[in-house]
């Protein structure tokens, strides 16, 4: 807090000085915190973020350090200010415990459920921004299904979707409502471009760590390599319609030396799998993970890349729409109950 910007109300000199001193303390603390983050970034390797998560989990379990400190460390590492996190993933759905590992049926085939999906995402924090680029199965004008590119991006309270598979060249902007975390599974983009992990897997791990939902579960072998495994339960609101929150077992595997994310597995217990037996499970292999310095060039990675001059259209937030529908439904039920009571009373009299 500098003298140039802090204007105290006119009052006693001593008291004013006291307020200014505290303001200076606050300003210095903010500067130190920013410097610490910058230093950490300079020495950061791609895996340093999850290193803090794992260290945090160990500390939480060990109980030797206050939980607040652990969360603060993990938070700082997982939401690196002034950096751009790049993640490349390949996701594959499978039926665990079912008669077939693949999802059978013509619908599954037409929806491309059994095909691995590659996604590349870039994210930054303070302020939160991200972009995901992937492909989704889209019906062509000839009636067939082809993988079409789609991008989603978030910044300043709005999500933008650029669906290049559609015959229109337009960007749809949807506001993300208050109380709806931009990294949550409720974000409008999630159902289109992201599966069990949501739009920001690393931020999601941080959230789980904060809530104490992750635990260290020893080591495992993935693709012939040893990994550290963190396990927990993901709790999330139902994406389609009202209902109780889903609780899905999740595994997060990280490299034991660099702590870079290796694989995420989410068992979507109770999810509709087109009538297939077993538990719909999404296994996401991380094929690329790097932390880039925030520059003009890398900041551009956080925004939609469009071609031509797309039309900008403002869409409806489905989350809000659903909440409104639920509220209307409740009101209707209350009105019906009131009417029924009135009728019953009239009959009694």
């Amino acid at each position, binding site marked *: 807090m500098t003298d140039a910007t802090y204007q105290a109300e006119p009052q006693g000199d001593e008291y004013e000085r006291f*307020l200014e001193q505290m303001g200076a303390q606050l300003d210095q603390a*903010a500067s130190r915190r*920013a410097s610490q983050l910058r230093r950490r970034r300079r020495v950061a390797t791609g895996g340093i973020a999850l290193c803090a998560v794992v260290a945090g989990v160990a500390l939480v379990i060990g109980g030797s350090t206050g939980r*607040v400190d652990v969360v603060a460390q993990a938070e700082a590492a997982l939401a690196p200010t002034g950096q751009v996190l790049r993640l490349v993933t390949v996701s594959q759905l499978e039926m665990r415990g079912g008669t077939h590992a693949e999802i059978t049926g013509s619908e599954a085939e037409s929806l491309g459920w059994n095909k691995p999906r590659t996604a590349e995402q870039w994210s930054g924090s303070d302020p939160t921004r991200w972009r995901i680029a992937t492909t989704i199965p889209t019906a062509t004008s000839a009636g067939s299904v082809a993988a079409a590119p789609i991008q989603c991006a978030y910044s300043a309270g709005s999500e933008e979707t650029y669906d290049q598979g559609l015959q229109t060249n337009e960007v749809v902007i949807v506001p993300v409502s208050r109380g709806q975390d931009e990294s949550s599974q409720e974000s409008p983009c999630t159902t289109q471009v992201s599966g069990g992990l949501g739009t920001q897997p690393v931020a999601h791990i941080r959230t789980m760590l904060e809530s104490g939902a992750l635990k260290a579960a020893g080591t495992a072998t993935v693709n012939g390599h040893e990994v550290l495994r963190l396990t927990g339960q993901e709790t999330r609101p139902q994406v389609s319609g009202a209902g109780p929150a889903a609780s899905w077992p999740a595994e997060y595997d990280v490299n034991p030396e660099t702590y870079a994310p290796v694989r995420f597995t989410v068992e979507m217990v109770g999810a509709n799998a087109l009538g297939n037996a077993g538990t719909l499970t999404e296994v996401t292999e991380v094929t690329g993970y790097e932390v880039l310095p925030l520059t003009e060039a890398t900041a551009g990675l956080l925004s939609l890349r469009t071609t031509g001059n797309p039309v900008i259209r403002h869409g409806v937030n489905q989350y809000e729409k659903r909440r409104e529908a639920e509220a209307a439904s409740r009101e209707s039920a209350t009105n019906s109950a009131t009417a029924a009571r009135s009728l019953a009373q009239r009959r009694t009299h």
Partner: protein
Amino acid sequence: MLNQGPDLKTLYAEQGDDLLRFLVRRTGDAEIAADLWGETFAQALASRGRFRGNHEQAIAWLYTIAHRQLSRYYRRGKAECRAMQRLGMERPPISAETEAQLVKRAGLDEMRSAIAAGVAMLSDDAREAIMLRVVEELPYSDLASRLAISEQAARLRVSRGMKILARAVDVQTIKEAREA
């Protein structure tokens, strides 16, 4: 610096003084209030990345943190300074003159006088009941047996006394009178 998340610089400039006086009125102690105040801003600084909202919501968020600090203080009897320590912050010492100005600005003397006047207005029975309940923190069962009345009557006596005190200690009235 402070320009990420809620604008703490503006928040501090606008709300720092008000928040400190708010805490002084609720603790009756400038030192404790200043500790809670410093911790509130330290926690705001540490967690500002998680905050989403506009300026008005940021003020409400800041006061929510302050209320949480107050609750902890009431429960534990001491002010915590963990966030300040973690961030390497040191709350400036309060000189006698600063304390006197703070007490004056918070209307603490007026409030104390109002409480004294309110207590004087109470009947002997109500005053004794409130002293036992509020000052000595006796549970209602003990208070009832000490006063040789039923527990329900003890609750009623304390409740009536507190209402009289609340009317006497109208902080807003004091503030307006002081500023008039």
